[in-house]
């Protein structure tokens, strides 16, 4: 037992830091109904503020910490509530995920712009000297962290159970309408809650910075550690969240003891929150839900496939002609860029199938893309012909997607979204480095189809496959499954009364989406002749969602625009600042467009219609207002 004690002590310290972040997350979710994926990024802002104050401007430690906790953090919470959270609290889990994700992406991108992308080591501000208890060395900063977390948990409990504010906040959680009728200013309660939540995020960030360094990505992922803990508390119970965080911290620390001798489980520690999250899902009773009470139905307009019109035919013919002619007018890096763009259209379209019709956000989509490339290579090496291998690789992804979605989506869409993020992380840290995955090189070389391996030939192959797949996606979204998905956005219970399980519909769409992502993954790997874990890490998944929502999720046109913005623009405008500002812009547009299903595409359509209306009015051709045509899809 004694040999485990040092690991338990370390785990207690880290677990306490996670507990602080997790309690902030649960507190704000419970009170405001917004699950904040940017909780980690908010902690990161606090940590960078501390770095600027203390390291760059030599403000004394205590003062710097005080400014961060008492000025920067509450201010951040207040501003973000007014600018983002209060705008999205009634808009369902998909909008919230996208908006808070966009916020996280934007804050992370800004941090990279200002401080650079490298990890900055920050000296500890708590004493690192140790004392010994029962033969175990305990660092003071660990002991202080543990005590701070306990104090925070008790303080929160006392504050919410014995103050007037606490009583009003609890009333708000129960029934906002009634609380407001009693004359309580509910907006102020939410603002204060966000300020407290921000303080918790910042505390957690400050406590972890000396351990992990100042790195926007790592700190943004702080929230990830909090997910598992929050899941133990079923996203609502603060005491259980605290217990969950401590348990995960200790378990993660103990697994590091074994991973030293067994490299196969080296990624287990970081995956633990999601193993917990997944276990909670699997072990939950059949009829239970987690975290969907506030947003059972998405009242936002969802994707709609209109009838195939003459305009659709014309757009399709023009598009296909341009795509087929392109390789005869361009070559080299531009042709590869064009191939990449076309393949990314399929990746975005596979994501569109989820975000558009069923308002389900997948935060691990890049993983399915990676698995497509990986399985294609492995099958092809085993002697399966290229095109058959591509199809089989995509089919192999389907059971994985099913295993991920079936247990989790019945709890709530938010829960599946969190599970997909966890899936991406586990894939990256546990599966990719294994011999079954990308191996120790973290990269594999991917074949192109024999006889069609020239850039031009492969471009045409990719275009043909992508177009066929897009047609299939259009048929699915416009068909029975799409109609059912659309109906689900209005009423789960009515669909149930037809003998259809809503979770099954969502899972089927999720599996189909994974299938198309894997096809695209195989093609993408073949295009670059290689696939590496860097290309398909979990941050890519998050960026994919942000980009698609910016472009528009109501029609397939959004997927074309998204692919162009994501791949085309950096190829065409190869400037450093374009690439550096991309995440920030995607993040901000994702926040702005999260409530509008058709993003930039929709905005453009409105502008075009407005101009057309003005022109008609000026030329006196018509006094009739030009009608906004039904959202229709063009290939």
């Amino acid at each position, binding site marked *: 037992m004694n040999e485990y004690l040092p690991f338990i002590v370390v785990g207690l310290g880290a677990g306490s830091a996670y507990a602080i972040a997790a309690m902030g997350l649960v507190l704000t979710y419970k009170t405001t109904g917004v699950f904040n994926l940017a909780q980690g990024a908010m902690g990161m802002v606090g940590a960078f503020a501390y770095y600027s104050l203390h390291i760059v401007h030599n403000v004394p430690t205590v003062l710097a910490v005080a400014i961060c906790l008492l000025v920067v953090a509450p201010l951040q919470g207040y501003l973000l509530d007014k600018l983002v959270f209060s705008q999205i609290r009634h808009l369902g889990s998909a909008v919230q995920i996208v908006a808070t994700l966009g916020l996280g992406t934007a804050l992370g991108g800004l941090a990279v712009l200002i401080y650079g992308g490298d990890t900055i080591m920050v000296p500890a501000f708590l004493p690192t000297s140790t004392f010994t208890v029962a033969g175990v060395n305990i660092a003071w900063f660990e002991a202080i962290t543990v005590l701070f977390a306990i104090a925070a948990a008790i303080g929160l409990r006392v504050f919410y159970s014995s103050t007037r504010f606490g009583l009003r906040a609890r009333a708000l959680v129960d029934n906002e309408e009634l609380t407001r009728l009693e004359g309580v200013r509910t907006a102020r309660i939410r603002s204060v809650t966000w300020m407290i939540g921000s303080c918790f995020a910042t505390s957690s960030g400050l406590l972890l910075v000396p351990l992990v360094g100042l790195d926007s990505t790592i700190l943004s992922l702080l929230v990830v550690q909090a997910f598992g803990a929050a899941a133990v508390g079923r996203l609502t119970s603060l005491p259980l969240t605290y217990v969950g965080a401590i348990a995960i911290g200790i378990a993660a620390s103990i697994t590091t003891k074994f991973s030293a001798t067994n490299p196969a489980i080296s990624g287990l520690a970081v995956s633990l929150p999601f193993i917990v999250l997944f276990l909670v899902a699997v072990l939950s009773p059949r009829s239970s839900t987690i975290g969907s009470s506030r947003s059972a139905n998405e009242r936002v307009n969802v994707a709609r496939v209109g009838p195939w019109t003459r305009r659709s035919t014309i757009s399709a013919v023009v598009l296909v002609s341009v795509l087929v002619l392109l390789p005869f007018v361009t070559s080299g890096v531009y042709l590869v860029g064009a191939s990449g763009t076309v393949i990314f259209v399929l990746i975005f379209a596979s994501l569109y199938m989820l975000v558009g019709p069923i308002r389900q956000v997948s935060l691990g989509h890049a993983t399915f893309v990676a698995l497509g490339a990986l399985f294609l290579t492995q099958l092809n090496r085993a002697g399966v012909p290229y095109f058959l291998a591509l199809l089989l690789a995509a089919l192999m992804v389907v059971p994985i997607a099913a295993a991920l979605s079936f247990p989790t989506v019945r709890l709530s869409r938010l829960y599946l979204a969190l599970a997909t993020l966890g899936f991406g992380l586990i894939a990256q840290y546990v599966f990719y480095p294994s011999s079954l995955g990308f191996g120790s090189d973290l990269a594999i070389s991917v074949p192109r189809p024999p006889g069609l391996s020239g850039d031009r030939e492969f471009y045409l192959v990719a275009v043909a496959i992508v177009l066929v797949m897009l047609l299939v996606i259009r048929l699915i979204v416009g068909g*029975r499954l799409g109609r*059912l998905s659309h*109906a689900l956005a*209005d009423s789960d219970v*009515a669909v149930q*009364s*037809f*003998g*259809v399980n809503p979770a099954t519909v969502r899972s089927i769409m999720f599996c189909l989406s994974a299938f198309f992502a894997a096809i695209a993954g195989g093609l993408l790997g073949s295009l670059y002749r290689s696939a590496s874990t860097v290309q398909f890490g979990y941050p890519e998944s998050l960026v994919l969602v942000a980009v698609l929502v910016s472009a528009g999720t109501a029609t397939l046109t959004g997927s074309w625009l998204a692919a162009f913005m994501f791949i085309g623009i950096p190829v065409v405008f190869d400037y450093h600042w374009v690439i550096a500002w991309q995440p920030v812009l995607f993040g901000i547009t994702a926040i702005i467009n999260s409530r509008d299903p058709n993003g930039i595409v929709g905005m453009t359509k409105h502008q075009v219609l407005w101009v057309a209306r003005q022109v008609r009015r000026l030329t006196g051709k018509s006094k009739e207002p030009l009608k906004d045509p039904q959202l229709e899809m063009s290939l």
Partner: protein
Amino acid sequence: MAEARRGPHSLMVRSDEAQGFLLGHLDAEGARRTQSMVEGMLRMVLEAIDVTVRFGGHVALDDASISVVPGAIRGLIGPNGAGKTTLFNVCSGFQAVKSGKVLYDGRDITSMSSIKRARLGVSRTFQRMQLFASLTCLDNVLIAAETSRTRGAGDEQGRRVRKSSDRERAERTLLEVGLGGFADKPARDLTTGQGRLLELARALVRNPSYLLLDEPSSGLDVKETRQFGDLLAEVTERNGFGVLLVEHDMDLVLRVTEHITVLTEGRVLAVGSPRDIRSSQAVRAAYLGDEVGAA
């Protein structure tokens, strides 16, 4: 299957005769048990038998029973808090029971989920309307048609025929309930009355064996309620399914149902024809008061 269960109309007549005979010659409890037995033998009944449901310390249903036979409308009435909605939910599978059982044509479905019951042939509507507001009326009905257990006539002739048949069935059902002109209108533009009709159309197109209606007249005016009642009687007669009608509107219940179950405080107070219920002193005292006396 659907044809087979609907075909022998004579069986239903026999069932009704048997009920009348038995109800006339036995005491209430004996009549109910014998009636269950006869209907069980005939195997065409949706029934909840001696169901008890508790919410914490509160007994919502106490040994309550109800049966719905094909081709007839069963009314379920009672004062507020009597347990009507709970019993309705027990039948539709949205409420688990503490004791008692639910039978579907003799098959025990007590522990079957609402989704599976729906697949079996139980359609329901909702007191608080559950329309697909952003879809057109036709799409609302089409989704129900596409998910129904019995498909259109084109089944064996391939998918294309079947698909058009789903659409045709949906269009026909919309016409049947009088919403033919609203096919392409979004459901959110409908009035409450039209919404109720659309919900009915969605339930009808699924070709159910049993149709459970949860206060379909709430939100309707007198004229709309009367029209709804006429339509309900007509489609029940034509399609031969059994209907369970939970209703507050006494006029509607007394006018369209053949049998009525009266609940009070979770127990069955009386079972009988509208005439019996109208003249029952116990019911009058417990619930109807002067309302019926005036009628």
